[in-house]
């Protein structure tokens, strides 16, 4: 794996500084000084859409030996050779433990665990729940591979409403949900806010000062941790780790932005990010920024969360009049509703095609960014109206740095749990020492046949 300094080499600027396709010729240059071909960073991106899918329009047509993409996946046809469709992978662990069907789906999706029994989210009769009960796979991967990038991980959202167990899929640890940034201008400021160039003496002084401030804050948190109750200590320790993460970013040497990485254009501040009709525009801005962040190696672990479980998004641009969740509860016989749900999922696939397209149009060495990225499509349900969490619509897109061969429809035996997928994702990102993820009762090891090395 290339040394961190590689990410701070010269990137070519695009015209007008708004380049999103940044040819990383520098990697090729550096490659020549090494024995083998240059190693590009592998990235993993979790792509969430809510409320299940329309199975009949999602599942490929034909057999795994010879199939064509169904309607919902048609927009992904240009990427068919880097697509892996999974069948019969269940969210088995979500059928145990407390919580309602959307809560457990969201809580188990990336953690592979039941929700905590707790009293934060009321449900009487012993059904109250707390948060997710462990670290989520994206945060786990980030903790292992993300220490050399400015952000261990980046979470972006599109109109994610509220901060509850229905709306959080990432967890730094048990009961420590990680919020996505849903506001494009704030995401931009956070990702591309520039401290100036590292060689600038003013910027260097600012960085030193910031570090000194954060050291004092860390001292206070450590000291206070020792005086409070055990439960409070957990909170303060988590806060302390957050401060240390920020300090580490300063230690990585330089401002938030690598020396010559071209910033994308800042999003319009006037965009009303609460207006439902702006959902597509917000999504587009977030996708653009995410591509730029990955291209600038600001992180290698990311997620883009479109809305949340029990989504209230109204697809007005497709003629929709009801919230997604409401519509997802239409009966199977309601043809008009099922058609609209299908078109909504097609629309989501079109967004994915746009995102993958941008990654593909960014060359990296003899390939593209998409070759070195694994996009993992997730949903908290399989079927909206029955809340089924069997046969989840998991989809992998991208080369994953060679870890995932594409063009496959993999049917797993019934009873396969998604914890196994989470293990495989760790392996795909180079963490081959992982043997189980989440609740061990629901995990057998990696999914057979998913990755190149099996």
């Amino acid at each position: 794996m290339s040394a961190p300094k590689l990410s701070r080499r010269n990137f070519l600027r695009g015209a007008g500084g708004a380049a999103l396709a940044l040819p990383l010729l520098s990697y090729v240059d550096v490659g020549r000084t090494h024995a083998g071909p240059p190693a590009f960073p592998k990235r993993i991106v979790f792509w969430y859409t809510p409320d299940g899918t329309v199975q009949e329009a999602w599942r490929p047509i034909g057999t795994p030996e010879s199939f064509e993409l169904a309607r919902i996946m048609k927009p992904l046809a240009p990427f068919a050779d880097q697509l892996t469709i999974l069948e019969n992978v269940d969210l088995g662990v979500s059928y145990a433990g407390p919580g309602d069907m959307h809560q457990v789906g969201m809580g188990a999706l990336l953690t592979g665990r039941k929700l905590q029994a707790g009293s934060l989210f009321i449900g009487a009769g012993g059904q109250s729940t707390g948060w997710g009960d462990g670290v989520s796979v994206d945060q786990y991967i980030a903790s292992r591979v993300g220490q050399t990038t400015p952000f261990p991980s980046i979470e972006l959202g599109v109109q994610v409403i509220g901060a509850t167990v229905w709306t959080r899929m990432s967890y730094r640890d048990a009961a420590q949900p990680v919020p996505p940034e849903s506001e494009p201008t704030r995401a931009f400021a956070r990702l591309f806010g520039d401290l100036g160039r590292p060689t600038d003496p003013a910027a260097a002084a600012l960085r030193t000062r910031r570090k000194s401030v954060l050291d004092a804050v860390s001292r206070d948190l450590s000291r206070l941790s020792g005086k409070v109750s055990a439960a409070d200590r957990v909170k303060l320790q988590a806060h302390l780790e957050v401060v240390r993460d920020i300090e580490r970013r300063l230690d990585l040497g330089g401002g938030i932005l690598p020396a010559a990485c071209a910033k994308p254009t800042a999003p319009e501040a006037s965009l009303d990010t609460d207006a439902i009709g702006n959902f597509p525009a917000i999504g587009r801005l977030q996708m653009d920024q995410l591509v730029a962040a990955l291209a600038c190696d600001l992180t290698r672990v990311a997620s883009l969360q479109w809305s949340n479980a029990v989504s209230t998004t109204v697809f007005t641009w497709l003629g929709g009049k009801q919230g997604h969740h409401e519509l997802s509860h239409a009966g199977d016989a309601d043809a008009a509703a099922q058609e609209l749900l299908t078109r909504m999922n097609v629309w989501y696939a079109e967004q994915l095609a746009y995102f993958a397209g941008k990654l593909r149009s960014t060359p990296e060495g003899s390939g593209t960014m998409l070759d070195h990225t694994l996009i993992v499509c997730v949903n908290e349900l399989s079927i909206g109206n029955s809340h089924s969490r069997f046969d989840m619509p998991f989809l992998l897109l991208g080369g994953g740095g060679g870890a995932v061969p594409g063009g496959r429809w993999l049917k797993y035996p019934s009873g396969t749990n998604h914890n196994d997928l989470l293990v495989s994702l760790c392996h795909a990102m180079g963490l081959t020492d992982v043997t189980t993820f989440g609740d061990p009762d629901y995990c057998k090891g990696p999914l057979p046949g998913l990755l190149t090395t099996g």
Partner: protein
Amino acid sequence: MPRSNGRTRNPLAWLAAVVASAALAAACEGRVGDAKPGFLPPPPPAGAAACGGVEEPGPSPIRRMTRFEYDRTVHDLLGDEARPARGFAPEEQAYGFDNNATALVVSGLLGEQYLAAAEQLAAAADLARLLPCDPVADGELACAARFVKSFGKRAYRRPLDDEQLGSLLEVFRAARADASFEVAIRAVVSAMLQSPYFLYRVELGAPAAAGATTTTLDGWEMASRLSYFLWGTMPDDALFEAAANDELATPAQIEAQARRMLKDPRARAVVADFHDQLFDLPALDTIPKAAPDFDDVIRADLKAETRLFLDDVFWNDGRFEALFTAPWTYVSEPLARFYGVAGAPASGFAKVAVDPERRGGVLTQGSFLAIHARADQSSPIHRGKFVREKLLCQPIPPPPNDVQINAPAVDPETSTRQRFEQHEKDPVCAGCHHLMDPIGFGFEHYDPTGRWRDVDGKTAIDASGRILDSLDANGAFDGALQLQERLRRSGQVRSCVVTQWFRYGYGRGETTVDRCTIAGLDAAFAKAGYDLRELLVALTQTPAFRLRRVDGGAR
């Protein structure tokens, strides 16, 4: 301007699962767990006898500032008007409120936002006003130390100890090494605004007697409890002085402060915030509606109507029952047209009498009725659920997570009521729905925008309903006015209002050890004739407010 991360509305979760866009013309399929009628235990009976008489303080988890509190605090501390916390990651919510101490975490995103805000606030700070000395005349280090002590005492809400002072002076020295005195002072400000001593209300309690399980709070801690409970901000000079003189120790002293503070305008923002959250008023901004005239003006004005109403009830009337019986409301000119009533003012809002046959009380206002309805239909389930959970404090269990619910097709010829009556007939669905739908039917005269209607499609409105499975509000009624009459006479509803203020005021959900505290508050509320302002005073008199458990290390 509402912001995407700032929407506090809870998604209407599993509920819509059983609502379905479709009507239920046939049965719900599938296995549902133990959803038998009457399986919900009613809330514990009020009254000290039932609880054993001992009021315990209960847990006191450390409380992180909310965005609301952060902005108000930096305003009082630094004169800031920019309200940076509006851009922070939203609070994790629990029990319907955004200030549940156990739920709040500091995520990486929030940590960075704290950093950015602290630097901006420090950069904008008016040092001329904040510095108590002249660095040139008094010596830089000495002046820095004086600043740390005087500003720090307000920022940390108590005098600093030597270690805190030393730590901040280290920041000063390090910054001063390559920047000016002023820049170094601003670095100190930035450090303080990110310190846990600022961001959390740190309570270690007064030194406890050996073997004691509870202890009092020291004066500084009590000052902060009072100021954040009643004002949502840091203590004022009077509270700080009372703390310094150890005059916040006895219940009488605390009560005197509470009464003083309730007269201060700062209390109004807290009460308004509580009502906004209880009634989920910000949801009006975004809830989808099919009616084209339900525009931004109407949304804003419906919100304002209820806010003005609740304010007036709380501060001018004060009686709990007026929430449900006040025969007036506030209208603007657009609202008057919307509702079809007279009395519109030329501009702004005017207080008007309502039509006594149709309106009166918060549950007959457009805000409640529109928020708890769908885009193009009323929703007996949402409206009933609100009454059951928020006013009767009986949580409705979500469907067990293994049920397969497949809603059948809609019959557009039926009324909403007819469609949902199937919920009641099917025993599999009725177990939970009997708690909500029969209440919600009482609101059928109000369409999805909150306007009055006499027909729903082709069917004349039937607004008869009943409350089941409550302690003391059971019975039949016809229409929202009769429903509200049952609610206002109910001890369970009164106790629920007490419980809601407990949750909001103490920043936690009630636990079994709080039974006696709640019973005591019920009694105090009754003794005060159910005056809402007296309830707030009573909340400062409980052991839960005045004491804390001994569960941490020593100071």
